[in-house]
């Protein structure tokens, strides 16, 4: 660790991992509710568990992005963070606000929470992924602005690199597009139209800039390849991301009351969305093949290659699978969507956060470059367990989705929703088993932080 203020990244990473564990526990509850419908009913109904599952995901990824920024920006800018105190204060505010919100979901009926937090004054609640009380949303804005100020000032006063510039554009976009979460018109079509300006322009837009920037940083550090080469790749990848992804928003505008020309715009542009992900895979493997050093942190390199590969499969391939409007007509809002969502989020965003944690945490904990071999071996086991588990979760949900689409929407005698759900239950059971394997992988991952700490650090091989 070159700058002492980089240390503020550590609590962010620890919180991210803790909330990740919570997300997975609620995922297992949801998976069980799919097959045992009355599990925990009426204490924790499905909608509450789902809200906790998705909101924890978003919050822990944001913790991960912020931790990543606090770690890599000082090193790139070659100066201390503008205000480590502010970063720590925001950490506690964000953590407490997040915890209170989740407790609110679990302890108070949702309508009561809406009343308690004065949702009528500025109604923003009750929309998918944006379920947070308005006051929490305002808190997120405050945290995001303080964070942007802190990171922005550090970048602007220090050495400017493409990595930090792209990161700053991504983070600014994240803050700006979140503001659309406060727009909730009575008109359902307008509501849905601009809801996607948060959700799509985040995950298929500005978040990919953050992903690209973090990946570029880790590859510069671990491969020793010339920065010029990596930065050129970064530019061209994010160029393709936004060239395809912005108009690609149109793939959400097929069936929600918006004009039908979106079926053309959405299909053509989102069909090209896999291109930047494919380039990212080529990029990561190329850089590692051309490496000028054998970095002792082999686990971090594995995560970096993993995120590039799995993002392409999950976001690229599984996205393309149902993005063309004639296909989407049948698959829209089915288990196919859920399959894509799981692998895309894991590949693109879970794995990039785990990549930067894997790279940075050894230094944050006092090592010079890497953990002991023993710890790394365990971490690599967790990589394979979680990654293989998510592949199977995706395959089982895809199987369930294909059957669902056929039985409910395509066959001669379309069957009612619940009848179809019973018929595909086998795949939900298999998904739950894969989910348990994921949990074992996650526990292995957490264990890797506690194993081999008294053993010597892995050394750079010749």
């Amino acid at each position, binding site marked *: 660790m070159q700058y002492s203020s980089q240390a503020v990244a550590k609590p962010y990473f620890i919180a991210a991992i803790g909330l990740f564990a919570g997300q997975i526990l609620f995922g297992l509850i949801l998976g069980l509710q*799919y097959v045992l419908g*009355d599990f925990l009913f009426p204490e924790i109904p499905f909608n509450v568990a789902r809200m906790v599952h998705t909101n924890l995901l978003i919050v822990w990824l944001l913790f991960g992005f912020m931790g990543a920024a606090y770690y890599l920006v000082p090193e790139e800018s070659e100066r201390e963070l503008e205000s480590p105190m502010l970063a720590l204060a925001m950490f506690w505010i964000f953590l407490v606000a997040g915890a209170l919100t989740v407790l609110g979901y679990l302890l108070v009926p949702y309508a009561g929470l809406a009343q308690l937090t004065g949702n009528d004054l500025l109604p923003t*609640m009750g929309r998918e992924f944006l379920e947070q009380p308005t006051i929490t949303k305002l808190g997120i804005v405050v945290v995001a602005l303080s964070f942007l100020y802190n990171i922005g000032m550090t970048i602007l006063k220090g050495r400017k690199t493409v990595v930090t510039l792209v990161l700053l554009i991504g983070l600014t976009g994240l803050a700006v597009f979140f503001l659309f979460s406060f727009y909730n018109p009575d008109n359902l079509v307008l509501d849905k139209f601009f809801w996607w300006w948060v959700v799509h322009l985040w995950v298929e837009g500005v978040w990919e800039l953050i992903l690209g920037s973090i990946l570029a940083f880790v590859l510069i550090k671990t491969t020793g390849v010339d920065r010029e080469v990596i930065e050129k790749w970064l530019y061209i990848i994010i160029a393709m991301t936004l060239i395809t992804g*912005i*108009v690609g*928003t149109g793939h959400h505008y097929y069936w929600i009351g918006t004009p039908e020309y979106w079926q053309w*715009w959405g299909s053509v542009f989102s069909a090209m969305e896999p291109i930047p992900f494919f380039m990212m895979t080529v990029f990561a493997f190329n850089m590692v093949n051309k490496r000028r050093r054998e970095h002792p942190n082999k686990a971090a390199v594995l995560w970096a290659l993993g995120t590039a590969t799995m993002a392409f499969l999950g976001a690229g391939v599984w996205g393309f699978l149902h993005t063309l409007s004639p296909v989407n007509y049948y698959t829209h809002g089915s288990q196919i969507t859920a399959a894509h969502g799981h692998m895309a989020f894991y590949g693109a965003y879970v794995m990039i956060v785990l990549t930067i944690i894997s790279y940075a945490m050894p230094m944050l904990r006092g090592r010079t470059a890497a953990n002991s071999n023993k710890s790394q071996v365990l971490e690599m086991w967790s990589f394979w367990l979680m990654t293989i588990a998510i592949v199977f979760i995706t395959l089982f949900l895809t199987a369930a989705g294909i059957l669902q689409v056929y039985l*409910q*929407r395509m066959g001669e005698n379309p069957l009612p929703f619940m009848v179809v759900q019973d018929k595909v239950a086998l795949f939900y059971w298999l998904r739950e088993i894969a989910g348990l394997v994921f949990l074992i992988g996650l526990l292995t991952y957490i264990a890797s932080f506690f194993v081999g700490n008294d053993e010597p650090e892995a050394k750079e091989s010749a």
Partner: protein
Amino acid sequence: MSQAFTKAMARNIFYGGTVFFFLLFLALSLDTVSVLPERDNRANLTEAVVQGKKLWENNNCIGCHTLLGEGAYFAPELGNAFTRLGGKDGIMAFIKSRPVDGIPGRRSMPQFNFTDEQLNALAEFLKYSSEINSANWPPNVQG
């Protein structure tokens, strides 16, 4: 990548491409907003519909159901519930009849204890939703 393709070229493609396609997206969005009145059934946005949408949000219905295909995939699509359940009466009767403790071994919608006025508002909201021009989606009445 080849040496002839420089970092400056990559940077220019990024800035130029982003600005161009963002402006294109804005233009398409502007056009969408201007033609929406013909498709989004805003003529029928009555007070009851507005109240219904608020109840829909305040009870997090999207946490289990989809509406025009968006939401959770745990419970049936509701964009066409008005047709599938046989109009407003069918919708209100269904919501009203949910058992407080659920159904053993099966998924069940919670009992929300809505008043008759609230039930009517929700039914009106789902009627309004079913009349949005959704390009013939869903493919059939099962949603």
